[in-house]
């Protein structure tokens, strides 16, 4: 659990982060959204003390972060940034092994962990371990960046626009991978992004920031249906609201008995995907399949009722 308690950062007269208080539950994903200059990155960087707060406190599992050396604190917290920040003179394997090495893990354990992570991120260890970062594609570099952040099995992972430099196709793949890994290791993730779509997709909770202030801290559903300020509403985009709500739920929860005509949709698809498919094919209902078997249907009427605040 990360407790951020009335944290403030000011440079001279400028207040960058202004009395922000929020609590991030263990094993959850918290997305911090805001425009550039909103203070979201500064807030993130205060958690691992890359920026020292002017006032207020941050506690991790009840322990004030100021009680440990900054560098020791950072070794326990994964940190992944936009443009990956890989060390260009060190191989992929050495990059990933950075924190285990700092923590004094023995060689075999470190090597095994590097292998494990490379496999987890679908990079063949035999092929990638000894390559230099510049020999990798942008998507591969980004994955190595996240692998490095996770190397010492941190409970907390901080991410600053980690997918910002990726093209849309690779980005959505990277987002899916991140969610899979997050569920597997139950890591607490704090992720900074300017993209509300990404925040809604990844976040269990969303913190919206503007001009250093926390405007709203709530679940994606609440943010979409009850935006706290006009600015939050603007970030979501009023024309997008129904679709964003639909994108939060999966087909599986809304299956009705029965069947329908045409190609089925998978149970893991979002309601938004289902809605798009209904509109596109001009049908009133879709068959729903699980592992290739049709198990029921989902109807346009039902979707419509979920596209507004409950």
């Amino acid at each position, binding site marked *: 659990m990360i407790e951020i308690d009335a944290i403030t950062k000011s440079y001279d007269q400028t207040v960058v982060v202004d009395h922000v208080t929020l609590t991030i539950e263990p094993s959850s994903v918290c997305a911090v959204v805001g425009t550039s200059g909103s203070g979201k990155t500064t807030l993130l960087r205060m958690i*691992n003390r*890359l920026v020292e707060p002017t006032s207020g406190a941050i506690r991790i599992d009840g322990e004030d972060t100021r009680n440990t050396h900054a*560098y*020791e*604190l*950072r*070794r*326990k917290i994964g*940190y992944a*940034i*936009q*443009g*990956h*920040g*890989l*060390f*260009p*003179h060190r191989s992929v394997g050495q990059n990933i092994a*950075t*924190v285990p090495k*700092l923590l004094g893990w023995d060689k075999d354990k470190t090597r095994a962990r590097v292998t494990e992570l490379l496999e987890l991120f679908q990079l063949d260890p035999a092929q990638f371990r000894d390559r*230099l*970062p*510049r020999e990798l594609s942008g998507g591969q570099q980004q994955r190595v*960046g996240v692998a*490095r952040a996770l190397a010492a099995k941190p409970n907390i992972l901080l991410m600053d626009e980690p997918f910002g430099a990726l093209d849309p196709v690779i980005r959505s793949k990277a987002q899916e991978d991140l969610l899979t890994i997050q569920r597997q290791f139950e890591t607490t993730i704090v992720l900074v992004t300017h993209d509300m779509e990404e925040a809604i997709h990844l976040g269990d909770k969303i913190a919206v920031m503007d001009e250093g202030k926390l405007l709203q801290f709530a679940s994606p559903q609440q943010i979409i249906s009850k935006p706290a300020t006009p600015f939050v509403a603007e970030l979501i985009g009023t024309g997008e609201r129904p679709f964003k709500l639909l994108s939060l739920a999966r087909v599986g929860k809304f299956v009705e008995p029965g069947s329908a005509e045409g190609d089925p949709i998978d149970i893991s698809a979002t309601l938004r995907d289902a809605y798009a498919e209904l509109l596109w094919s001009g049908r009133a209902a879709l068959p729903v399949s699980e592992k290739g078997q049709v198990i029921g249907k989902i109807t346009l009427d039902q979707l419509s009722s979920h596209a507004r605040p409950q």
Partner: protein
Amino acid sequence: MRPGIIVRLIAFAVLLTFLIAPDLFEPFFGMLTKNGQPAIYNQGSLLDLTLNHLAIVFAATFAATLIAVSLAILVTRPFGVEFLPLSRSLANIGQTFPPVAVLALAVPVLGFGTAPTLVALFLYGLLPIFENTLTGLVNLPGTVAEAAKGVGMTWAQRLFKIELPLALPVILAGVRLSTVISLATATIGSTVAARTLGEVIIAGLTSNNTAFVLQGGLIVGVLAVLIYDSLAALERWLMARTGQAKRAAA
């Protein structure tokens, strides 16, 4: 093998032959002499002079590297930033002061011989190394510096494992400039009785012997080109190895 390398290897072989057995070249240099002057320098061993010349240059450059790099590290740390302008102007003064003037000023304090030459070369060599180290340390990619901090490296670990290795090619470019400047400048050390190749040139000038002047000049010139090229090759290799092919040497 590339033609460039072959030319350099030949130049090195010829230089070595000349230093070990200069008499072999007597017919060539004989064409430049008048009135039965000696064609080959005869007031000492050319090999000894060359080795001594190189020793002075390397000692001065080594000391300059040590001091300049330490100074650059110091002024790029948070506690040293205030000294950045001061150290810059100090290194600049070292560069603007003509080496001859440094020699002249150093002789009354240090006496004749090698010492004043070492001091002049040392002062003269500081600036390129200092400026390049500064460039190398300051111009690290921002995300790399950020990541090094973010993973929990201490300042010493960041310096020795990340910043210096990445800045090394640029630092080396400074050392290369410094070495080559010193190689040439060391010749004037002979005016205050340092044993360098300047002796050969001065002997030639005072006795109006073109062959001597040319010998001294050629040895220094070829040495400078060869050392410059080998250091440049080392830089390129380091650049490639540290994955920064695109970072240009200043």
